């Protein structure tokens, strides 16, 4: 509770700061929107040469794309700057956080909270909304409920991945790019239907690095498509379990990392 309060406090202050440089904030937000939007323009360009990718139409891919981008964008908004942990360790400024009566994790998550990341979220949201509008989905109650489910647990999975990627920096301070392979890489991967990847890769993405639980399984349910792996239907509802497992792992690695830092001081 105290941690949530501290997080909101810090985030609110950074929002106030960014608002005091309004022009810069607007430019950066639009920049985020455009950078993020290019990925989708690329997909549209590909579709000037083809009609379907891995058996999925442009609108269906837009649905996958929107879901993946929204989840990554939300996670990035919530704790994106946690990847600066390595830099803080190198500069020695993590110590200042350690002598404050608030969890270091919370301070790192809220560090320089960047509201401009709404740019990516807005872009993902627009593509998602367009896909929902253009697709002829039979909106049963269950499918409708699956949308917030996708967003909540997809975001949670990315939150855990961001945390693990940052925690690794307790050991190797300049490896922040390693995390990118899993966060941005994972999101890029999930923007496309899994049917374009080899079966072994889909299995790995289900059971080893469970990116498929972010948006693939929920989307299969909403779009009423069959699972290329032919797994039992219950797998499509595995999001909460996977998110909880990953969160537990992330918490473990983070704690071990803090312990490591406190036993080496570097």
């Amino acid at each position, binding site marked *: 509770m105290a941690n949530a309060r*501290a997080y909101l*406090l*810090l985030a609110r*202050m950074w929002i*106030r*700061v960014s608002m005091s440089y309004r022009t810069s904030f607007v430019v950066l937000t639009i920049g985020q929107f455009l950078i993020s939007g290019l990925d989708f323009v690329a997909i549209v360009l590909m579709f000037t040469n083809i009609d379907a990718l891995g058996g999925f139409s442009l609108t269906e891919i837009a649905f996958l794309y929107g879901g993946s981008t929204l989840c990554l964008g939300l996670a990035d908004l919530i704790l994106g700057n946690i990847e600066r942990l390595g830099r803080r360790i190198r*500069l*020695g*400024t993590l*110590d*200042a956080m*350690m*002598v*404050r*009566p*608030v*969890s270091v994790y919370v301070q790192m998550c809220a560090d*320089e909270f960047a509201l401009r990341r709404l740019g990516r979220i807005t872009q993902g949201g627009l593509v998602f909304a367009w896909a929902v509008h253009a697709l002829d989905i039979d909106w049963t109650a269950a499918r409708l409920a699956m949308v917030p489910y996708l967003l909540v647990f997809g975001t949670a999975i990315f939150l855990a991945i961001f945390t693990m990627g940052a925690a690794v920096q307790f050991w190797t301070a300049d490896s922040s790019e390693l995390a990118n392979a899993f966060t941005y890489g994972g999101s890029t991967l999930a923007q496309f239907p899994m049917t374009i990847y080899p079966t072994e890769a889909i299995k790995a993405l289900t059971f080893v690095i469970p990116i498929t639980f972010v948006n693939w399984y929920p989307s299969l349910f909403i779009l009423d498509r069959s699972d290329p792996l032919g797994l039992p239907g219950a797998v499509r509802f595995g999001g909460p379990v996977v998110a909880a497992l990953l969160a537990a792992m992330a918490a473990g690695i983070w704690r071990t990392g803090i312990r490591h830092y*406190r*036993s*080496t*001081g570097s």
Partner: protein
Amino acid sequence: MSMIEVRDVSRSFVLRRRSGRWRRTAHTVHAVSGLSFTVEPGEMVGYIGPNGAGKSTTIKMLTGILVPTGGTLTVAGLTPYVERTQLAQRIGVVFGQRTALWWDLPLRDSYELLQRIYRIPPARYRTNMATFTELLDLAELLDTPVRQLSLGQRMRGDIAAALLHDPDVVYLDEPTIGLDVVSKSKLREFLRQTNRERGLTVILTTHDLHDIEQLCSRVMVIDHGRLVFDGDLAALHAVGGARRTLVVDLSEPTDPITIPGAETVKVEGPRQWLAFPAEASAAPLVAAVAAAHDIADLSILEPDIEDVITRIYTSTPPPG
């Protein structure tokens, strides 16, 4: 109850060094070993030692950042590495060169954040802010982003930040480094006053020995991870074999004077420097010099703490 109790504390690190293309060999470095001391409430202690002697390792253990490998320590009755978050309410830390303030924020915003983070009661916050703003001359800086402050201004800002939540103990790492003479003396006056009025316990690490001379009644010297001296300034002089220096201007240049009980340490034209034990009287020495030479002028230099400490460092053999 003592404010700080350190008993037989040690901290070693395992370093891996490349010893060939692929191989790495591990060896253990004892950053601090067998450290024991207590600090009473309201004491102002100078903690000095050469770079790499173990000063910052000690401070990191006292703040709970670093876990000791052996021994026990308590600060304000709490075990730092176990109760780090509770302890954070009771201590303040200034990390010398690295600011704990938010780089892009105006000073005032940093303070408002700290008020909420430390849950400082509003009335108390207002009083403290008023006091520190006046004593540290912060009024004109409050609306300036920290990154635009000069080193001295930032240090003042950092010190106020560390004291805002009324800590019992404050650790100051090189608080006067890079400051001009006026800022230094203002800062020292502030620390003296705060220590006196609030009963604040202060641990001061510094390279500027004038800080120690002017602020601290007690000095701890650490070298090679061991406490080599703990006592007051007078004792430090005695241990370091402090010597006073008689400076004489002769009417004309001569060979170095030789007089029993004194050593001629420097000759520069007609001026000569004669060192003698601090506790000995200067009168017989002056008489002896005057008997043999024609003295134009003379003065006596008091022992220099820097000199004393250098002697202590050089006289401690490195362990092992």
